[in-house]
């Protein structure tokens, strides 16, 4: 084929034009993140990893978790006091903190925030509802907030970072039929955080731009080259997300990367993988109300049939730590002397035979619902299916979405035989895990979806919840964990090591188990 010089020139110009328009996100002041956006921007309406990350950037809290291991750091509050009976908590506010509209943040705003949270009554309010009523929060003076609890509550202080303070002066004009501005806040922002939303940029679940808030109360002297703009651009598919990171059009991925993608990023020259021990448990649930899982021998058979070592070492490539109980192994209250269940198909067979002798229908097909589109849950399920087949158990895998699983697990009869999920850190207290997973008062919620009931455990967890000092609570959680492990209601696999793909131009990334390192104010971009 002959190409004339003119034709060659035209082709070359076209190719150059192509390359020129595909410029990567290399602006040194713009950080492009591939983290998912929350389904709703109101911190009073949604509670998940994405909304926590959103809140850490757009809002402020009285106290905040920082670092790993996480520590409670005074944030909007400078200090707090608690009465001897543990019922009255006073938080002293920093003066001169400004919301994004320039108005000052005072104790009245915190009162409004908590009352709004309770009135809207969605997931972020759940841990507060048993102990707080609207009138329990008061402002004795302009810079003091007082919480008067209905009863002593051990996790209370740990839950304080879940309160993202909102600006009532911005919200109230948008209130509609007493909705506390819920409709408006779903797509807008009314905070004082280090970054503020550019409202015209927001398209739900697709994109949001935030610009640096120069008047943020912490100041920016510790980060002179702070990121000026965050472009939130979630990528729906993992491969696209990773390719975008590798070609430089994205600065950060999520923290649920599958191993093959981790290896791929590790090999690249312009990005790396940040690995951080966190507090996120992977659990296979068994519906304890449905045969054969109402039989303890059947449950133990299944617990012995999961290849923990193989999964952690070979499939997850060591990016997890075996955790045999429903408390993260880096959390206080973790019982160090509990070894849990090991992978032993001979024992699994023995327990299966005992269960069959008890009349449990161990030969019936078992359905396990698998969360899509998360690759690790699929891999764990397939490994489990293969081992169970070798001992004569017919495990059928059913693809499902988290939203649907949450939905169907609200009733025992619609909860699947088995399903698999993570339990992430929202407040750093054993109650976030063992408390909400195995206290029968939480039946009907996805966290308690194994429908386990043990009055002794209920009493212990309740007592721990209503005790204030950590030294007194820790042994109660340890004891409850031992009883639960002996009853084997679920299969606890690991505590995750979070793997997050980060562009090499990102400096100052700080990981924290709450928010998975999504707080951008500490970061800057190298040229």
């Amino acid at each position, binding site marked *: 084929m002959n190409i004339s010089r003119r034709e060659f020139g035209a082709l070359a110009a076209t*190719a150059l*034009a*192509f*390359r020129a*328009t*595909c410029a990567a*996100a290399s*602006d040194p002041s*713009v950080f*492009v993140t591939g983290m998912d956006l929350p*389904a*709703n921007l109101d911190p009073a309406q*949604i*509670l*998940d990893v994405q909304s926590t990350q959103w809140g850490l950037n757009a809002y402020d809290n009285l106290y905040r978790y920082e670092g790993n291991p996480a520590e409670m750091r005074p944030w909007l509050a400078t200090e707090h006091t608690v009465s001897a009976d543990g019922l009255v908590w006073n938080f002293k506010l920093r003066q001169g903190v400004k919301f994004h509209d320039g108005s000052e943040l005072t104790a009245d705003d915190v009162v409004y925030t908590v009352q709004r949270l309770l009135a809207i*009554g*969605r*997931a*972020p*309010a*759940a841990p507060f*509802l048993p102990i707080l009523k609207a009138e329990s929060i008061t402002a004795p003076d302009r810079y003091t907030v007082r919480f008067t609890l209905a009863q002593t509550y051990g996790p209370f202080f740990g839950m304080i970072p879940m309160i993202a303070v909102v600006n009532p002066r911005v919200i109230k004009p948008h209130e509609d039929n007493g909705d506390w501005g*819920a*409709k408006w806040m*779903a*797509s807008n922002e009314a905070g004082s955080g280090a970054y503020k939303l550019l409202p015209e940029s927001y*398209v*739900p679940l*697709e*994109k949001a731009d935030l610009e640096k808030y120069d008047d943020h109360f912490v100041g920016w002297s510790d980060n002179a080259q702070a990121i000026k703009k965050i*472009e939130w*651009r979630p*990528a*729906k*598919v993992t*491969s*696209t997300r990773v*390719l*975008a990171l*590798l*070609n430089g*059009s994205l600065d950060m991925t999520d923290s649920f990367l599958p191993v093959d993608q981790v290896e791929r990023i590790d090999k690249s020259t312009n990005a790396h993988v940040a690995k951080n021990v966190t507090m996120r448990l992977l659990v296979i649930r068994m519906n304890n109300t449905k045969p054969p899982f109402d039989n303890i021998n059947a449950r133990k058979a299944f617990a012995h049939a999961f290849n923990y070592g193989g999964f952690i070492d070979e499939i997850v490539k060591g990016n997890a730590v075996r955790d045999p109980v429903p408390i993260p192994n880096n959390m206080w209250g973790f019982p160090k002397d509990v070894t849990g269940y090991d992978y032993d198909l001979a024992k699994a067979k023995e327990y299966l035979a005992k269960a069959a002798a008890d009349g449990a229908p161990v030969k019936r097909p078992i359905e396990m619902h698998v969360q899509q589109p998360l690759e690790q849950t699929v891999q764990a399920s397939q490994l489990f299916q293969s081992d169970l087949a070798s001992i004569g158990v017919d495990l059928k895998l059913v693809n499902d*979405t*988290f*939203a*649907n699983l*949450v*939905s*169907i697990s*609200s*009733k025992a009869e*619609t909860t699947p035989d088995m399903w698999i999920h993570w339990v*992430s850190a*929202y407040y750093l207290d054993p109650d976030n895990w063992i408390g909400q997973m195995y206290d029968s008062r*939480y*039946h*009907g*919620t*996805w*966290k308690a979806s194994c429908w386990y009931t043990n009055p002794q455990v209920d009493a212990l967890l309740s007592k721990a919840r209503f005790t204030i000092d950590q030294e007194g609570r820790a042994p109660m959680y340890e004891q409850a964990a031992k009883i639960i492990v002996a009853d084997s209601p679920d299969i606890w696999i690991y505590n995750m090591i979070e793997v997050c793909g980060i562009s090499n131009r990102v400096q100052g990334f700080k990981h924290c188990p709450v928010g998975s390192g999504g707080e951008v104010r500490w970061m800057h971009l190298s040229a």
Partner: protein
Amino acid sequence: MLRFVLRRVLYAVPSLFGLMIFTFLLIRIVPADPAAALAGDNATPQQIADIRHQYGFDRPVAEQLVLYIGQVLRLDFGESQYSHRPVGLDIRQRLPATLELTFAALLLAIVVGIPLGVVAGVNHNRWPDFVLRLFSITGVAVAAFWFAIMLQLLFSMQLDWLPLRGRTSAGAVLPPELTGSLLIDSLIAGRLGVFWDALLHLIMPAVTLSLGALATIARFTRAGVLDTMQKDFVLYERAVGYPRRRLIWIYVLRNSVIAAVTQVGLLFGALIAGAVVVESIFDWPGIGNYAVQAILTADYKVMLAVTLLVGVVYTIVNILTDLVHGLLDPRLWEQL
């Protein structure tokens, strides 16, 4: 012709009504509780019950259905359970992106598929025909997500020619929205930079989406050409020495594409359905992507609205297809 159009529109009404009821019942039959999904992490049973009551999920299904039909007839699709934004508004914002992608894919499939089919047909059992057959089997069989990733690896990662994802580059200032098509709007506004940027972003998603349709159209055109080439009028024209190129590309083609045009109508529905996958991979901000998010978050009002919308678009395209049939062969007016 007018009578034909009216008749088809009237036929479409019960179909769409059936679709509306069927999808509503399908979603309600599933033993799921949207209130629990909506309540989110850590929610208590009481909170879930409150939400169930607030959204009317605790009412009888028949009552909910009547309310839903009433809303839809008023073109009110409710609001997203999560964003609290009107679903109609969200769809209006996203539909143009999907239509642009779908029409681009369809155009590509027609413009490339029909000539390919003709070339294969007139070269029956020779190498162009063998190549086309291989291509059409591959085109139909290959998985869109695999093909999309291959395109991304080659054109974005290796050659760095095309953008990896999205509809425009970061920071692009968009022209005023007139038609919803970024290509057309940017041309109207004289913004050639935006046009070029949008075109580059469109190439890979459109090629991926068109692959199956292109193969199908080429195959049907080929079959049509083979059939027409045996007709008496073709033999006659050839015998009298009518120019071959003119004979094939005008007379044979016109008589050969009816089956392919029927496929265009059917393929349009498949393309909109296929856009769900393609939009997810390329982060294309259309209703496919919106539907995936709705499914993942169990936002059932969005799911219902998107399903109904796809049904309406599919119906309209089928009516248009029948019209084109009639234009190509007026005898069909009476039969349709």
